[in-house]
């Protein structure tokens, strides 16, 4: 392969390579000439030159908001930027729904519950309920999903039975309580029940919770694991890609942004 030639670039303000950057930030001091100078000094400390403090506004008694223009002496070789292009971008709510409509052609059925003795539905609710979590909508809100949240203290066998009755594509098991590794015991029990019902390897089995990670989930026999900070959209994207892979509509080794690792 021919090594691409160098392609040096810098930010473009109003002419090539002027390196102009716009910044805005707040300093926790009252508005004054001294505050403006502090903003200029801070910007210079970041390595910028030709600093112009365009606006200094009293955001509150003891806070000043600045808009600053400056030049950066930095440059980079664009030819050296290496991003594997096979990575599919994580899709937004609307894009993912449109994608499901086009590629799957039906609603994806998802069941979820806190199984065993666990009564903490915070995790499963955040992923499945309308409201979602941190501004990220839950699966119930996606027209592309038909989501059933069975709540807490659901026996593993019940969850599997109800999911089977609706031909579920994916089952989410949430485990919050971890005293004496009860989450692992219950998760193993779920996998045993899934094997007995003949759905292991057929229906996507996902595990989530504050002490769960992808590696642990795989060890326990799940298809994927989701730990703290997981957003509903992460789970939604995962389920869609996994389903397409299963149906042969996407290469098995396709990778995408935000997949569990």
């Amino acid at each position, binding site marked *: 392969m021919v090594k691409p030639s160098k392609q040096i670039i810098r930010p473009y303000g109003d002419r090539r390579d002027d390196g102009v950057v716009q910044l805005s930030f*707040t300093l926790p001091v009252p508005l004054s000439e001294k505050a403006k100078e502090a903003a200029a000094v801070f910007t210079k400390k970041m390595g910028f030159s030709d600093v112009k403090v365009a606006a200094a506004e009293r955001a*509150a*008694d003891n806070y000043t908001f600045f808009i600053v223009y400056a030049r950066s002496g930095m440059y980079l070789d664009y030819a050296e930027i290496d991003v594997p292009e096979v990575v599919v971008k994580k899709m937004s709510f609307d894009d993912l729904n449109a994608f499901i409509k086009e590629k799957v052609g039906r609603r994806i059925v998802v069941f979820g519950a806190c199984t065993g003795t666990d009564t903490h539905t915070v995790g499963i609710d955040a992923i499945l*309920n*309308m409201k979602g*979590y941190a501004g990220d*909508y839950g699966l119930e809100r996606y027209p592309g999903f038909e989501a059933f949240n069975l709540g807490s203290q659901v026996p593993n066998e019940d969850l599997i039975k109800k999911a089977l009755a609706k031909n579920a594509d994916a089952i989410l098991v949430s485990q919050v309580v971890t005293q004496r590794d009860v989450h692992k015991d219950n998760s193993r029990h779920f996998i045993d029940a899934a094997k007995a019902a003949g759905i292991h390897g057929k229906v996507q089995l996902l595990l989530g919770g504050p002490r769960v990670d992808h590696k642990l989930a795989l060890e326990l026999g799940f298809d994927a694991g989701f730990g703290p900070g997981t957003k509903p959209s992460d789970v939604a994207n995962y389920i869609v890609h996994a389903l397409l892979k299963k149906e042969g509509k996407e290469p098995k080794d396709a990778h995408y942004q935000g997949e569990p690792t």
Partner: protein
Amino acid sequence: MPGPFIDDAQIAHARTLAEEIVNPIFDLIRRNTTVSIERTVLRFFGISGAGARGVPLANLMVDKLKAAGVLNRGAAYWYGRALHLGAKSPLEAVERLTALPTDKLGPLSPEVEQNLRAEVRAEARSALEDMKSRLAARDALRQQFPMSPAPHKYVIVATGNIYDDVDQARAAAQAGADVIAVIRSTAQSLLDYVPHGATTEGYGGTYATQENFRIMREALDEESIKLKRYIQLTNYSSGLCMSEIAFCAAYEKLDMLLNDAMYGILFRDINMRRTFIDQYFSRRICALAGIIINTGEDNYITTADAFDAAHTVIASQFINECFAKRAGLKDWQLGIGHSYEIDPYRDDTLLLELSQAMLVRRCFPDAPLKYMPPTKHKETDIFFSHAYDVMADLVAIWTKQGIQLLGMMTEAMHTPLLADRFVALKSANYIHRAARGIDEEFTVREDGKIANRAREVFGQAMKLLQECRDEGMVAAIGKGHFGDVKREETGGKGLDGVMEKAPDYFNPFLEILEAT
């Protein structure tokens, strides 16, 4: 105001339909109570502390009474019985009470029963008087330092730490905010208790606790005096503890509460019966406390499409209004919710949003209305986002919204930076100043896009109201008519906290609140 668009008789008919929809639900409300309502009764009596591991005493007591199968006579009644047992604390009294064999828990002699109720009633009256005098102090401060003219600019703080929230709230007030909302920790609405004390750790927000309310109100009182402009405080009376939060808010002199008759059912999967029963008592408290409620219809069009589902917002607003009026709330307390949420890449969105906001204004001429900013179609291009928010500022002043939650240019990215609030406030001030009175200057043509769209949406809303009246509210929710969410009467969280009242059920607060 621009345009009648709709006949007065049509609007009156919508109100009649809403009453007919709400009526059957009042049978349910009258016949039942909930654990949350009974805990609120105990909180009124001053039982606001917490026991081991922070469990609120009100929960401990109500759970014990429920386990003993006697809660259906009312926590107030057992509070009275406990007082007679000479225990050192109310909790100890309840422990003694519930340890008694069942045959000892029966009614006392009619005379003793009557005296006991009279005593408890007197105590309830003095508890309410105490609350009223606290609220009078709030109202005096409001009088002394009048608020800016409407729309009241409403911004959110959400650090998770009440002390950091205070810093952010003070800064927002100094930058021109009129209303501060402290966002609750994620999923607090699903907790069947109100956490206790000052809190410094939350996820996506700060726990609503009575102490956090007190800390924030105290800080805002100081700011109000300093700025010579009263700053309002709001929180969330939704979820499993609607009436307890309403009590804590009233006691700590809050000014507003998010409070919706159906939000919990639709968006939090809280049981329908539980929500309908709880919302009533919570709104009775808001009515007494002069708290402005904010309803949550804006949420419908974050789940359903804002253009297609516009009529569901109007229909729900009539229903929410009817529930509110039945709980004693006055027009000035109805922050009826709606929002600016139509996909900005459509044509005519400013006309469509104006049409919807004018229609809401037309239907609820005396309510303050609560206008919500765009969120669903927000992009991370903050410059576009800012322009998009400014359009909502224009619609808000044009349609005389009472309360306007300001859009943040970093919506869809992170909780607002201090500067984001400043930028939003500065431009809202500009637009409000620039366009005040625009509604008086322009008449909207009755045969144009705005009026036709308003009539079309109102017509669909009437159809939906008729359907809800014919089939009942429960069936309508079951069919997913609101927000595209389907819920069943016995599904969702919190049904086990609902119980039928005994024939001699006793709740002196409800009696007094309903009589005023």
